[in-house]
């Protein structure tokens, strides 16, 4: 398990991290969310010793991370970068060997991943000959080649087309199923909602919300109610406290209802006002949870 405990980091006057905590267990797929500049990249880089935090610790299996431990990690940084003139198979195998694999094993694994990403016939091409999307795939291959115990991906979906996004999501999920601890950052919240059971949302250098997506959504202080009431007076809701109209379209209304409001009472009020054709409610989407969490 990866544990980030009370991480703090200042860059001059600017506090980048003000005490970030998070955990990723083996087999867990954790979405790491936050607006730009919230501290996601700084947190991820500190796992790899690329940032020296002012205080706080990063533990793997309960112990501080040694140079040797890091060989079992895979990392895809936000700013992608590989050797432009190296041949693709050699490049992926090189990173496998840097992570301690034998040449033979590294080349076999590299060939397997190239095949997996549909780059099997590009093995002897150079990186610079690949399209942007394929370069991104190769970057992921270098993070995966040594079958890491922990996979840290900074914006893995950025710059991918919908097909690429789907394939990337599938790879992350299968890595987690295979027992790898996976943490990735993203701004595509619908994707995160589909993919992850758990998320951590940070804002301005500290954790704003953390936990299972389902629980976060249901624990939100508001929920959404969708109503269709025929023959109701337009102002029938004015008498009802605790519900805010988000949108109306003829007889249809979307409401934001605070947690304290009895939905039974709302339904009763609707039935008094007219014929209820539809009454459904749902917790807010992750997107809305996110926006509420990072609102100033």
């Amino acid at each position, binding site marked *: 398990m990866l544990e980030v405990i009370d991480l703090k980091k200042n860059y001059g006057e600017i506090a980048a991290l003000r005490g970030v905590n998070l955990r990723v267990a083996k087999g867990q797929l954790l979405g790491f969310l936050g607006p730009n500049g919230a501290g996601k990249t700084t947190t991820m880089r500190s796992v*790899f010793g690329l940032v020296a935090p002012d205080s706080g610790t990063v533990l793997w299996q309960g112990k501080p991370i040694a140079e040797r431990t*890091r060989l079992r990690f895979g990392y895809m940084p936000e*700013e992608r*970068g590989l*050797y432009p003139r190296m041949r693709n198979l050699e490049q992926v195998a090189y990173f496998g060997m*840097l*992570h301690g694999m034998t040449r033979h094993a590294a080349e076999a694994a590299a060939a397997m991943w190239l095949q997996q990403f549909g780059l099997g016939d590009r093995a002897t091409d150079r990186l610079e000959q690949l399209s942007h999307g394929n370069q991104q795939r190769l970057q992921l291959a270098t*993070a995966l080649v040594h079958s890491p115990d922990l996979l840290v991906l900074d914006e893995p979906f950025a710059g991918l087309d919908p097909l690429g996004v789907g394939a990337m999501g599938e790879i992350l999920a299968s890595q987690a199923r295979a027992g790898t601890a996976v943490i990735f950052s993203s701004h595509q919240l619908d994707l995160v909602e589909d993919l992850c059971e758990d998320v951590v949302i940070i804002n301005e250098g500290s954790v704003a919300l953390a936990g299972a997506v389902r629980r976060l959504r249901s624990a939100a202080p508001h929920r959404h109610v969708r109503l269709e009431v025929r023959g109701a007076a337009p102002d029938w809701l004015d008498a009802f406290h605790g519900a805010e109209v988000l949108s109306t379209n003829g007889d249809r209304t979307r409401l934001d209802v605070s947690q304290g409001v009895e939905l039974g009472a709302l339904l009763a009020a609707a039935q008094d006002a007219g014929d209820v054709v539809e009454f459904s409610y749902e917790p807010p989407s992750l997107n809305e949870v996110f926006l509420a969490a990072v609102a100033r």
Partner: protein
Amino acid sequence: MTNWRTLLLIARRDFVERIKSRAFQISTALTVVLVLAAIILPQVFTPGQAGWRVGVVGTDAATIAASIVALQGDTDPIDTIGIPAATREAAIALLENGQVDAVVVAGEGVLTTGGTARALATLASGALTAVELTERAASLGLTPQLVSELLSLGSNNIASIDGAADNDTTGAETLALFTTILLFVSIVTYGQWILIGVIEEKSNRVVEVVVGTVPPRLLLSGKVLGIGVLGLIQLIAIGIVAFIALAATDVANLPDTTGAAVVATAFWFFLGFAFYATAYAAAGSLVSRQEEAQNAAFPLTLVLMSAYFLATFSISGDNPIIRAASLLPPFAPMTMPMRIALGRASASEIAISAVLMIVGVYVLMRVAARIYRGGILRAGGKIRINEAWRSSEG
């Protein structure tokens, strides 16, 4: 995985990627061609011993020419042509406009110009003496047989007791200068490779992945090792080509100190390269774009240049400043091999210099590794050394 394995893996990548690159192959081939040209071309364009022409006044030209050939003995026969000239003035005119290389004036001696080979002058003067002796002996009534007996002395040979040729100071100086130029050029060249390599890794961000896996000091030392070995191989290859060409053309006699100079060059290249390459790597880590490379490296290049100039000045003579410089790490890689090649460095000076150099390389590696570590992960503009130093603890 041991650190050694990682170090060799990184060194190997830098070595292989570069040796496979077209730019490296072209630059190596070009250097070899230039070295060969520098050795062979003067041979082609400077007239050698063959074809020496001697103007002769007052004596039989053919006799003088025959005498020169006779005096020359069994070494490469020179193609000497005697050109008879009516008067001394006519002969001088021929000499002045380059139609002859020397003029022999009976009863006076040999006239030469700055362009006359010393060997020709010596031979001509010897030949004149021999011819005059023969004539004078004949006029004293000695038979040609007696004359030849009189002149065939067997006891005027110069023999070296250690089998080596006479100590040719100009040869030693040429060798020392050649060594120093070679050291300077190769340290600058390979240092630039390091500099560019570091900035490349930084600007294309691959360093983030590499340093996320292996410690920066291993990346730094692997790069220095890989490029250093490549440089050494290139240097040796060029050295072998130069040696073969020199031996084949017989353009210069290699002095006694040649062996020592070659060993010293390799040794000081190794230490000097390790020292400057590490510093170049640290300088490279402070900037993000290739355009800034030369600015970043400027202070270093300045130190290297001053070491080089100190070394070249030292040809004219040893002095306390040069002796001190040859002991101190930033200057020693240029000045000490020069003093060794000139045969001026004592064994204890060489030992002190080598020890200080090794200590210097170690200390600089520690310092540079920390600056490198601090600088290499900071994108954006130029980073000051002290910032890089502070942002990287331990």
